[in-house]
């Protein structure tokens, strides 16, 4: 796996944009940021005896990864998407970050396979050979490319940080198109080999116990605490690579699904959360490092304008604003696609 700057991302980005020269583009009417994870149906139990936590202040690096993607325009042959990722780490009381991107791709039916496979080959050679997947469809491409970047960033952190706490956005469920099992295992192994522990926070979950979301099992107990789950089974080929907890790390109404590398012993898993409490700011049960990673990679409206400006200037694209059919047909009753 290449640990250098993702040159291939840049080259592919420029190459794909070169093919858009002098086309008309339709401004985007549909925005999606931050990929949601697909979760299969399962059966699950939750232990209502809380695992009480005490912050451990032994100094540990806390690092987090997040990526974001966005469709910024449509062309007559495809879509123009932007992808960006951020690594944030806290060391010596200071937060620092590395932000990669935005990378802009023009994805068409013609080039989608090439783009995806080239990126796969460039960064996850072993994966492509062992577990070849068909290239995603055009609408799936933004999230799939962002996933590639996210896995690469995760891999970078697990390969470079020693004895740290590495925070992922989402779950440690693997076996989906985005998260091949061996790739996630490799990432977790890398971290473990360097003494680091991976903790994955899901902002949304659909894991339920007796019909209730696991994050709704609020106890009259003073945070911070964890609730342990048992018996998680997923439909093949999905495999949970983490033990699933409900984490309520601070006061407030929020609780999150927390997956911790299941190859780590239970004691070390609990200790990892306690070290997180002692080394990072926790607000609404969510670690600040991960929050920053999310904030830094998210595209603002200003950046979308700037990227549209970039593609019109660099590629000579002409923007057109096709009328919103909802508004056209339904007038004031048409709320636009974003509301539909």
């Amino acid at each position, binding site marked *: 796996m290449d640990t250098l700057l993702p040159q291939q991302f840049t080259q592919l980005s420029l190459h794909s944009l070169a093919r858009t020269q002098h086309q008309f583009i339709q401004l985007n009417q549909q925005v999606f940021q931050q990929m949601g994870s697909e979760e299969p149906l399962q059966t699950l139990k939750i232990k209502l005896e809380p695992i009480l936590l005490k912050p451990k202040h032994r100094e540990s690096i806390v690092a987090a990864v997040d990526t974001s993607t966005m469709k910024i325009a449509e062309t007559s042959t495809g879509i123009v998407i932007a992808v960006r990722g951020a690594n944030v780490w806290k060391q010596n009381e200071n*937060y620092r*970050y590395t932000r990669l*991107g935005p990378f802009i791709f023009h994805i068409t039916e013609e080039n989608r396979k090439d783009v995806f496979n080239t990126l796969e080959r460039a960064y996850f050679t072993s994966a492509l050979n062992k577990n070849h997947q068909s290239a995603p469809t055009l609408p799936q491409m933004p999230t799939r490319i962002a996933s590639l970047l996210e896995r690469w960033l995760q891999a970078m952190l697990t390969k470079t940080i020693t004895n740290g706490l590495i925070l992922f956005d989402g779950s440690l469920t693997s076996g989906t198109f985005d998260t091949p099992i061996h790739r996630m295992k490799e990432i977790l192994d890398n971290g473990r080999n360097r003494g680091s522990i991976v903790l994955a926070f899901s902002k949304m979950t659909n894991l339920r116990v007796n019909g209730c979301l696991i994050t709704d099992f609020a106890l009259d107990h003073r945070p911070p605490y964890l609730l342990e789950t048992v018996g998680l089974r997923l439909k093949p080929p999905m495999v949970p690579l983490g033990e699933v907890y409900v984490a309520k790390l601070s006061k407030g109404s929020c609780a999150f699904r927390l997956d911790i590398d299941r190859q780590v012993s239970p004691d070390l898993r609990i200790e990892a959360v306690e070290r997180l409490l002692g080394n990072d700011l926790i607000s609404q049960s969510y670690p*600040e490092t991960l*929050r920053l990673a999310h904030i830094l990679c*998210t595209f603002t409206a*200003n950046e979308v*304008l*700037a990227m549209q400006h970039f593609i019109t200037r660099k590629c000579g694209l002409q923007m057109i604003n096709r009328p919103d059919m909802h508004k056209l047909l339904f007038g004031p009753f048409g709320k636009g696609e974003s509301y539909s």
Partner: protein
Amino acid sequence: MKLYRKEGNIVQILSFPNETVEKGDYLLVEDGEEGRALIVQVIDVQFATIPGVLEELLRSLPDGGELIQGEDIDPLEIAPHITYMQDASLLICKIRATVENDSLSPSSSWLPSRSQSTIKKLPIPTLLKLAKTNGQLPITLGTAKDSSLLTIDASSLDGRLNIITGKKETGKSHLSKLLMVSLVQYKATVVVFDLNGEYLSLGMTSDGKRNVNYDKIHVLTPSQNFKVALKQIGLHILLGILVHALHLPGTSTREFRRIWKELREKDELTLHELGETIRNWNCNLHVRDALFSRYHALVNSGFFTDNIAEAMLLEESLLKAKEEGGAIIINLRNTSTIDRQIVVEYILGKLVESLTNWKLKAAFLFAEEAHLYLRETYWDDIVTRMRHFGIFTTFITNQPDTIRENIYRQADNIFLFNFTNEHDLDVVSRAARVDAETVRSIARDLPPHHCLALGRVVRDFPIVARIKALDVKTMGETRLFFTA
């Protein structure tokens, strides 16, 4: 630049960072298809409301207010485009005129195309050419923002009421000196009420040598080289002094009239005889006391003399100024309030007399901080009656509220220097020849020695100019304690 919106006579224009536009600049919004163009002036520059800017700023300050340190790997170099967007500005512009077939009209009733209009900076020389400000008697005030010369025509000051105002040390006196010297060079008669002795060295260069105006600058210092004899003075002028400067009551004024008549008939109009006559005049004791106290005030001023030879300088100066142009500087420094009022009453009376008798064609009067010596009724007099006699006044003040509102309303030209005080800006914005937004917005940001010229001199196109330097000896500087 792109036309964004128009509301009333305000146009909003979106400007990008590579287009350097500042407050006071003129823009031409040209609609090729219409064959017309709007001339607009930038009166404010704001940040454009770009969506997402707040998020952009907030995310750079997550850690207790300190900037988060990090590295951005931006291979496509999108960041410059982001800052390009973030730094876009919104120009708030006032419509000044419409250009059609090279002629100007004040209309703003049409709407140029938002998509097709082109917007470019309008150089000041082009604007002035369109506005036809050029004339036979050019006065270069200085340089406009685009470094071109701002030249007005002296005739636009002729017969006009002007105001030079701004806060202290912004360059008001400098501009008034420039106008004075320029008018004198065109053989005009200029009279200056010099409160702080700032204009005494107009005839000297900064290194103390005589300049071309030396022979045309006549400095008159009351009770020193400037005195008057009772025989020269008309009764109505002296009554003006007694009533307005020395507040002589009506009954006493009537007695004085009789005394004056008797002395004139006897040809004994001297200070000594006047005193003796009052002493022996058969009248009410209080009236005599009132007359005596005024008599002593006149004597103590040192401004009056019985020696005719001592009292010819004003007449001579006016005569010289009439023939070859000149500035008569009335040095009011070190003069008490009462004496100052006596002198001003005399000068104004004498000017009206000279103009009435056509001894003078017209005179440009420069009055600094006029509220310190001008009586209440003179304000209206100056802008109405005296104007018809040929006295064209320029008021210079750093306290704009000391000039009455009706003066602002009738002012033909205003030279506005920096003001930061809202109240001061409010007062000036009452002028009829300018809109309040322009005054408030531009004047507040004027740097020292920069002036916003408003009114006829610029054909109602407000123009900011840096006033040019003048090679005259500086006088009237503030005396300081902490100086070497």
